[in-house]
């Protein structure tokens, strides 16, 4: 059994989480805890959850992403899901999945733009 790990790196004050191609349920569940712990430790203001390598996203995975977004939100951070492949986007829509209030962006670059614009607006009086 190959161990698929999840990578979390901090870029400026944003956590970039890269999901493996085909994570098992345990890896997906670990995502939640690792992201929340990293939020607390790093005092990040937001999370970019990159799924560009993810080949399929089922209801369990989608529910965990939506929940994680809510939890990060409760801690005061924003989550942006990035890089969803066209085939995954088509499939989860037909499956009837929603990702709750999770914001999305085409790629990590765009997500940084969104998160940084957000902080500029907050800083303005």
């Amino acid at each position, binding site marked *: *059994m190959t161990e698929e790990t999840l990578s979390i790196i901090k870029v400026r004050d944003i956590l970039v989480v890269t999901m493996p191609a*085909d*994570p*098992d*349920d*345990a890896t997906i569940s670990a995502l939640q805890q690792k992201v929340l712990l990293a939020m607390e430790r790093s005092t990040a203001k937001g999370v970019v959850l990159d799924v560009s390598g993810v*080949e*399929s*996203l*089922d*209801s*369990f995975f989608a*529910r965990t992403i939506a929940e994680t977004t809510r939890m990060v939100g409760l801690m005061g951070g924003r989550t942006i899901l990035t890089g969803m*492949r*066209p*085939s*995954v986007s*088509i*499939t*989860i829509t*037909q*499956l*009837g*999945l929603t990702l709750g209030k999770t914001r999305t962006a085409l790629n990590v670059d765009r997500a940084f733009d969104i998160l940084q614009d957000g902080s500029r607006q907050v800083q303005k009086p």
Partner: protein
Amino acid sequence: MIASLPEEVALRTETDIVVVRRAVREAAIGLGFGITDVTRIITAASELARNVFLYAGSGVVRCRVLNRSDQVGLELIVEDHGPGIADINQAMQPGYTTGNGLGLGLPGAKRLMDEMEIESEAGKGTKITVKKWRKGT
């Protein structure tokens, strides 16, 4: 020309869901399905395999190549000896669940595949057969 398919994948633990997804992915790619159909098939298999794990505890997934006139297809048979589905019509309603899932598994898998057949008997188990035909030639 067609890749050999694994005879069957046993579903005993949560990690076997990944084994099912990988086996089904190999099979679908081997049969020449396009990337979107491959993703649909993997996702449907994942939902059905998770149902087995959640409701029956264990089961088995079999892949089979289908041939009809000039069309090639993939059939997945997901079988368990769990409690069975009491009301299949109700189980096919989006949002209906007896567990704590989203209730999307069965109706979602049906939408992703071309054909679905459910045989279930209370106390005996459930057998779900889904088929996907390759478009074009």
